[in-house]
């Protein structure tokens, strides 16, 4: 098994945190005991057990790590102890590899609902010009009103959100071009 992996560090899952973003090349091969693992050419022997779904117990040179996997519609994270890392995993041989999309600042951008909720009101009309960071839609969840903002300067091409309607995470609220 060969993977290309990009890991972004985050300080304890808290606010902020720096990103390294270097891609790693990982080769994994079953050994007599455990796995032979070649990370960026460096060989380590590891012992891995899945005690339950989304939890991995890893032994590397006697060091023990419990890693938790967090998968959402949009992200893949690894928690090593209480430090969280955003991970992108590509299988070079597979077409179904995970794609990092949206890094392109040009072209139409979809504004997605980040959480389930109810659309309270629209802050702009279709075809109006907006600045980056300008509020587009207000979504209410858990007794809080949350302004969903435009990620870029542009024109609101289309608004799919309807006041009063329920939305699910990942639903497209509007498109800014």
């Amino acid at each position: 098994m060969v993977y290309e992996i990009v890991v972004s560090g985050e300080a304890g899952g808290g606010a902020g945190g720096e990103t390294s973003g270097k891609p790693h090349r990982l080769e994994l091969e079953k050994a007599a005991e455990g796995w032979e693992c070649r990370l960026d050419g460096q060989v380590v022997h590891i012992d891995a057990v899945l005690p339950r779904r989304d939890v991995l117990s890893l032994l590397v040179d006697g060091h023990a790590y419990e890693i938790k996997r967090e998968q959402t519609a949009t992200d893949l994270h690894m928690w090593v102890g209480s430090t969280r890392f955003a991970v992108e995993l590509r299988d070079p041989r597979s077409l179904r590899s995970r794609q990092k999309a949206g890094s392109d600042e040009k072209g139409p951008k979809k504004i997605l609902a980040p959480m389930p909720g109810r659309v309270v009101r629209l802050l702009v009309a279709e075809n109006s010009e907006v600045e980056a960071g300008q509020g587009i839609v207000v979504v209410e969840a858990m007794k809080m009103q949350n302004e969903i903002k435009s990620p870029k300067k542009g024109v609101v091409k289309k608004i799919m959100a309807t006041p009063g309607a329920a939305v699910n995470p990942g639903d497209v609220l509007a498109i800014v071009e």
Partner: protein
Amino acid sequence: MFKKILIANRGEIAVRIIRACREMGIATVVVYSDVDRAALHVRKSDEAYPIGPAPAAESYLRMDKILDVAKRSGAEAIHPGYGFLSENAKFAQACADAGVKFIGPSPHSMNLMGSKTSARREMEKAGVPFVPGTSRGLASAEEGEQVAERIGYPVMLKAAAGGGGKGMRLVHTRQELRSALESAQSEAQRSFGDSEVYIEKAIVNPRHIEMQVLADEHGNTVWLGERECSIQRRHQKVLEEAPSPIVDPDMRRRMGEVAVRVAQAASYTNAGTIEFLVDEQKNFYFLEMNTRLQVEHPVTELTTGLDLVHLQLRIAAGEKLPFAQSDVQIRGHAIECRIYAEDPDNNYFPSPGKITVLLQPAGPGIRRDSGMYEGWNVPMDYDPLLAKLIGYGTDRQQAIMRLDRALYEYFVAGIKTNISLFRRILRDDDFRAGKLDTGYLDRLLAKAAPAGASAARDSQSTKLERIAAIASGMFAVLEPSAPGSKNGSAGEAGPVPSNWKQKGRAEALR
């Protein structure tokens, strides 16, 4: 003792009350809204009845439906928990009219304490210390200016019917006062239907410390020690502890005695909490009384060894308090973390949804009061409190380390929680030194996350990053599941920008 009671609430507090009832041999009846059929309180109770759609106004706030369930099920009493109808004097009155015991104070006490100005007048008679200011609404801007002159700037304007920061204005100079008063009055009118605004001396960097009291229906009232509740965000408490790092036995006794006077002046019965503002010289001033069980009652339970819900039930059933003030022993230190469904990386946006993985802490000194479980879909309709994690230690240091350990064991996936925030607080130097005030948390959040500048830390980060890389590969080998394919609707919406972060303003509605 009651044979059966109704719990007019949901979430962790409903589960906590169900547990107390089971421990006392009392059958429980709960009510639930359409989105709460699979909620933990419905799973754990003896009886459960649907009372309407998700919005609280159509279910958990519907007095008529709740009283109807009480009658149908034969419940002798209603525990309101906190929030919802717990401080609604009309509901307490409706219970009395229906012949169902309301587990809490009388409607009279609730009404008295519900208005800040009427409470203040009553309490001043009882010699309770107040922040200097008016005990009634300002008749005019001139009166405001005169009072402010007398007590000294800065001053605070406050809505009499208020709460949650609405109708509040901090005024530093005479020039600002008139317009601040007008805007506070109109905000108070909009928010509470009552424009009454009063004026107080502004306390700089106050602490918020509260005192628990219990009063039976035979005239006995005791205090059970204070809770330090200064760590707040948007006027929401986030972490509470008992005892307060700055309260010594003498101050505790003085606060306790004032709290008992407050309760007695209001003919208060059952469990209640007197909130105080404490200034930098440790002067304490009456702020308000919460006429219900508090979210943070467990820290008092751990330091006193008492069970407040058991005692609420016994008091409501007409029993006398089973101990005297001199029997109350405060020992050790307890800290509570409120685990909210909100995203610390995203301006604390609420984060309802399905809990896909849940690993929960246990072991020495750890109490967990939870309303969630793995597989549960956290609804978007109610406040985001999922669970409370409470740590007890021989001393404050041990309680802090215990919680830090337990938070390390806690893992919730599928939704975001504020667990990482508590790790930051518990490791913060000011917190460890007990240097707290109500501005503490905003200051902490304004700071960048711990830098990690040292070489040791960097090499550690690199090591963990490599472990994360290996782990993601091992997961792919051992437990393949296409990332992003879980949530159908998002998958269909096309590629999703993973680093796009909405920075919206969130408004507290309560």
